[in-house]
């Protein structure tokens, strides 16, 4: 039937996107300052045999990094799409309710407080970022609820103001920090994908994937909620429950992504828009395709970031913006006859 999404079409599109993503990840894993061959990379050396450098680089350095990029991409792009739907605002992104500045404040407090303590033998930076992010979004959500259940403007303004306030605190703290602390903080704020611990990857990745799948099951309700909360209620959607669940999951996966990789901008804003421009706004399709597209985009951006000035590395956030801006504008112009920006 015209104008609707058939489950079959959706499955085929998700399948194609997933296969493309795997191919992109594989190709990117072979790219780097050190050229490696796929065949050598996939042969594990027998015990006691001479170490195989291609295998070591592939499995210990490139694969974890690419997996991390993909996971963070999934989280930011799906959360971005969900925040845009819940706030009924195409300009929303995963950081709009203060997650970024909350995480940043957590990190700088951890750094200035001295990294003397460790958690299970690990630096507490990620944990502080995670706690800071969730505490902030919880505070903003609470303020938004006070201003009115159905008025997202209050929630948005609370997010903007809390973001500005916490950013000022971060600036204040960076200005009194010692240079070494400053470097650690700024490095984190710019976003980087250098987690090499498989345990962290599994835990974080499990959370992100579970969250993304959970959001998919809310997507039919998100469609009508993105039209209007009253419309959703009148067709029988328990709006407050669904909104709370979607906000909580989106905030959670964003916080996980941010604590794994620092602040990577642009992915959560433009990937959902790009997918919407090409495939339409139906969230049953938008969420899975945004997740896969976000993963692929961030994998490619990170590959460029770690190779373009090798052996040095650029922060991946620089690449996402430089690559994403023109790419998005091209899409916008190509599909401009299909879009309308509400006044």
């Amino acid at each position, binding site marked *: 039937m*015209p104008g609707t999404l058939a489950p079959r079409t959706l499955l085929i599109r998700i399948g194609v996107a997933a296969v493309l993503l795997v191919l992109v990840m594989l190709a990117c894993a072979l790219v780097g300052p050190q050229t490696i061959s796929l065949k050598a990379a996939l042969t594990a050396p027998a015990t006691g045999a001479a170490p195989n450098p291609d295998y070591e680089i592939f499995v210990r350095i490139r694969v974890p990094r690419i997996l991390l990029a993909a996971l963070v991409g999934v989280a930011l792009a799906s959360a971005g799409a969900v925040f845009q739907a819940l706030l009924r605002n195409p300009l929303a992104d995963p950081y709009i309710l203060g997650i970024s500045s909350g995480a940043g404040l957590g990190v700088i407090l951890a750094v200035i407080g001295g990294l003397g303590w460790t958690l299970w033998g690990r630096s507490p930076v990620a944990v502080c970022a995670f706690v800071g992010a969730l505490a902030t979004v919880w505070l903003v959500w609470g303020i938004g609820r006070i201003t009115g259940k159905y008025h997202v403007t209050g929630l948005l303004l609370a997010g903007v103001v809390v973001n500005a306030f916490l950013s000022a605190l971060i600036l204040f703290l960076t200005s009194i920090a010692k240079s070494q602390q400053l470097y650690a903080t700024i490095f984190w704020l710019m976003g980087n994908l250098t987690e090499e611990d498989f345990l962290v990857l599994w835990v974080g990745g499990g959370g992100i994937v579970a969250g993304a799948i959970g959001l998919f099951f809310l997507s039919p309700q998100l469609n009508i909620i993105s039209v209007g909360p009253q419309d959703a209620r009148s067709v029988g959607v328990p709006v407050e429950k669904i909104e709370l669940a979607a906000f909580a999951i989106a905030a959670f996966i964003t916080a996980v992504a941010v604590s794994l990789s620092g602040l990577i901008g642009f992915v959560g804003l433009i990937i959902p828009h790009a997918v919407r421009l090409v495939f339409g706004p139906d969230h049953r399709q938008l969420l899975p395709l945004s997740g896969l597209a976000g993963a692929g985009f961030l994998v490619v951006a990170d590959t460029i970031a770690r190779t373009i000035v090798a052996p040095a590395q650029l922060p991946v956030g620089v690449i996402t913006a430089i690559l994403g801006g023109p790419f998005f504008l091209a899409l916008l112009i190509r599909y401009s006859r299909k879009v309308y920006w509400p006044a």
Partner: protein
Amino acid sequence: MTAAIQAQHVTFRYGRGQPILQDVSFEVPAGTFLAIVGPNGAGKSTLINILAGLLPPRSGDVLLEGTNLRSCRVQDIARKVAVVRQEFIPAFGYSVMETVLMARTLHYGRLGFEGQADQELARQALELTETVEFASRSLDSLSAGERQRVFIARGLAQNTPILLLDEPTSFLDLKHQIKIYDLLKSIQIEKGTTIVAITHDLNLATQYCNQALLLYPLGNRPAESSCYRIGKIADILTPGEIERAFDVRVFSAVVGDERFLIPSAARAGGLHLSGRASQDSSQCKP
């Protein structure tokens, strides 16, 4: 037989203001076509939202088919009543078909997709509202009137025994005003649907509806301080009642065997031309 809609002592106020609806009680028998009429700000949309379960009354109860809304889940309310609100442009460009199918959200399968029956209801609704030709176009590419018909189609696709509409024909051309009222009338008669529609067109209401509920504005209520009157069209939509509610002069005219209400432009106590303007106009006379 229980009435389709029962309002019992419904009172509502926004914030701490004056009550906009005070002690409103009425019954709408199943299969009635009720027109809600009244000036801007009299509480028409508020009343529709209360009847639809979107807004809980401050006090009093609403019963749909004998069930009190206060003890209903939103899912149960949505099976009884569909509401068509005033048209607007959603933030994202859903297609007409997608929009109409959203009415079936409650009935989607476990994976969140519409079934055959849902698609059939949506297709029928599109055909009835003559929107099938732009089924795959996005809502923001339509005119306000076309969009309004799509929202009416969404209400029809919900397939409920009660249908509430907030000014369903305000943006429609003459032909589609008639078509939509014909459509509502045929649904009322063929399916026995109870229909409540807010309208400013007194003559459409007179021609199509069985009953009318007239809401008086806050400052202009009758002496007994009731904020509404409900009854048969012929008893409620009379020149006297309309004049009192709207503060305009209304004439009644009979054409053929139909009665029409004609609002008059000028009214004592209404708008006056300023003295100077009328002087100027008198100078222009030959």
